[in-house]
């Protein structure tokens, strides 16, 4: 089992490295000069020249890649061309802000999705099930900005004026100092993610509840609750972990639209801003970060899958 996990880990590291290479190349292709991008209309030739000199844009490409890669290991993500400060300083707060959004959304959506999915499966083909699966099917189809706009109209500006529709943080304050402004972004993400988890959980549970061993457990006279907890749920862990992982990874990347909509000071906003400003170091850092989240989360899901499967657990362990 350890070997299996180690191999999986090695592959992940390899994938991450290739991603880093691709990210670097992709950002090289960004047209336009960062110096000009920073100065905008104020870009007089003298000021452009001065700024370019400051930004060390004159080193050969491969050297810049090696420097950058080396920096990653020491926690140095490079220098932002637009703030001219370290990227880590620029992203620090934003990463934790996005993380808060992500974690809160995940912590709410995952158990909710699992519970709804299980409930739906237990009540298979009854009204509850049909309502849950119908609604989740519809919500799952809606693009996140449609959900977000609908929530703003409903809860913030037009119908009810309950929650703030944008996020404002004073310096030194963090986004969670004023929880009310987290409500709409979190709710949007929860609405986007929960239907997928619900549907997957329902499908998996249906399959498990139809399985021979669940039927056998019932024929043994085992109580329904025990059937569910001991015989059915453990089998849903593996496949559902995959979906939850996928959704979490989606959250990391898909948070861009939601952050844009709610002006949430996270990495998504930073990314849009950085692409516009040709702030290559920031683009690289954020992209790599999101990719790393994806890879790590998937790795975890695989490990959970391996641990939840006695066959893999026992066989590979020897």
């Amino acid at each position: 089992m350890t070997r299996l996990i180690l191999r999986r880990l090695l592959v992940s590291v390899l994938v991450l490295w290739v991603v880093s290479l691709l990210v670097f190349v992709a950002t090289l292709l960004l047209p336009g000069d960062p110096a000009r991008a920073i100065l905008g209309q104020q870009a007089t030739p003298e000021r452009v020249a001065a700024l370019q000199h400051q930004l060390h844009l004159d080193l050969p490409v491969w050297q810049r890649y090696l420097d950058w890669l080396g920096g990653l290991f020491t926690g140095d993500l490079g220098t932002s061309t637009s703030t001219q400060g370290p990227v880590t300083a620029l992203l620090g707060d934003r990463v934790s802000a996005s993380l808060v959004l992500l974690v809160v959304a995940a912590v709410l959506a995952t158990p909710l999705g699992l519970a709804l999915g299980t409930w739906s499966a237990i009540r298979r083909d009854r009204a509850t099930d049909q309502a849950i699966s119908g609604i989740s099917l519809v919500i799952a189809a809606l693009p996140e900005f449609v959900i977000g706009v609908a929530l703003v109209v409903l809860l913030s500006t037009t119908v009810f004026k309950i929650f703030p529709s944008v996020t404002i943080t004073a310096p030194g304050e963090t986004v969670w100092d004023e929880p009310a402004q987290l409500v709409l972004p979190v709710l949007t993400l929860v609405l986007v993610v929960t239907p997928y988890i619900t549907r997957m959980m329902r499908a998996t549970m249906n399959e498990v509840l139809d399985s021979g061993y669940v039927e056998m457990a019932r024929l043994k006279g085992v109580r329904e609750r025990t059937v569910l907890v001991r015989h059915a749920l453990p089998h849903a862990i593996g496949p559902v972990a995959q979906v939850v992982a996928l959704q979490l990874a989606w959250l990391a990347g898909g948070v861009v639209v939601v952050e844009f909509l709610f002006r949430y000071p996270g990495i998504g906003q930073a990314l849009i801003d950085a692409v516009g400003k040709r702030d290559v170091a920031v683009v690289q850092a954020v992209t790599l970060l999101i990719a790393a989240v994806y890879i790590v989360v998937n790795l975890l899901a695989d490990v959970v899958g391996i641990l939840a499967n006695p066959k893999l657990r026992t066989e590979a362990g020897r």
Partner: protein
Amino acid sequence: MTAVELPRTAPPDAPPARSGGLFRTAWTFPKAKIGAVLTIVVVLIALLGPWLGPVLTGHTTTDFAGKPFKHDGVFGTDGLGRDVLTRFLAGGTTLLLYAVLATALGIVLGALLGMVAGYGGGWLDSLLMRGNDVLLSFPQLVIALLAIAVIGPEGWLLVLVIGLTHAPRTARVARQATVAVRGQDYIRAAEMYAVPRSRILLREILPNITGPLMVEIGLRLTYSIGYIASLSFLGLGIQPPSADWGLMINENRIALVVQPWGVLLPVLAIAALTVGTNLVADALASAAAGRKREAHA
């Protein structure tokens, strides 16, 4: 003597594996009917709209019907004073076209990759699937953001980028389906007669994975629509002065309180379209999974 039990042949009312049968089975689900109706209505609007708009309203998509965000005409005017209904009617064609093209690209590419990886096996499989992992770990929106920053918001680029981001996901599904089919004796029978590998892929494997692929097409179409609309919403997709639903939402969102139609019509259309295609895809998935019609008295 020992008799081995007849493996469960399809019960009389279970779905046969053919794709014609798949559609027929899927059609027995109410959700397929609702989905198809939603989709067809929106597609009809998208296809006939550009021609119907000027006839109904007397305005083209670009001329001015009044001041911005006023209630002139049936559904008022947009941010430039153009007729919302005309623009709404014309606004689905491009979205739909791009979504269909992107889906087609993603499916063809993904199915090909997945089938080759699944059938080839071995190092080829590992290589393709690790490459797939790399693509998958690249956040979809970031790819689009970078590509559009590099090249500009061109139509073909949208199709390409979205198609490409679909490909690895489709490849996974196609690979899984192929692996399930690969071990089947009819593939080995074809190999026994030295049928060329390309022909095995196209003639023996492809027809047998149409079930999951059909589901995938439905899902990818849903995502493509949402994705293109999202990009337009971020201002990166279809560009003005084109009439486009995603763009309309972006342009008119600001006046949601005064003149909601400029947002509501396209939001409803996009919602109906994505929900419709998703319902159909889900019905196909249920049919492919062999679930019998929810028997309810």
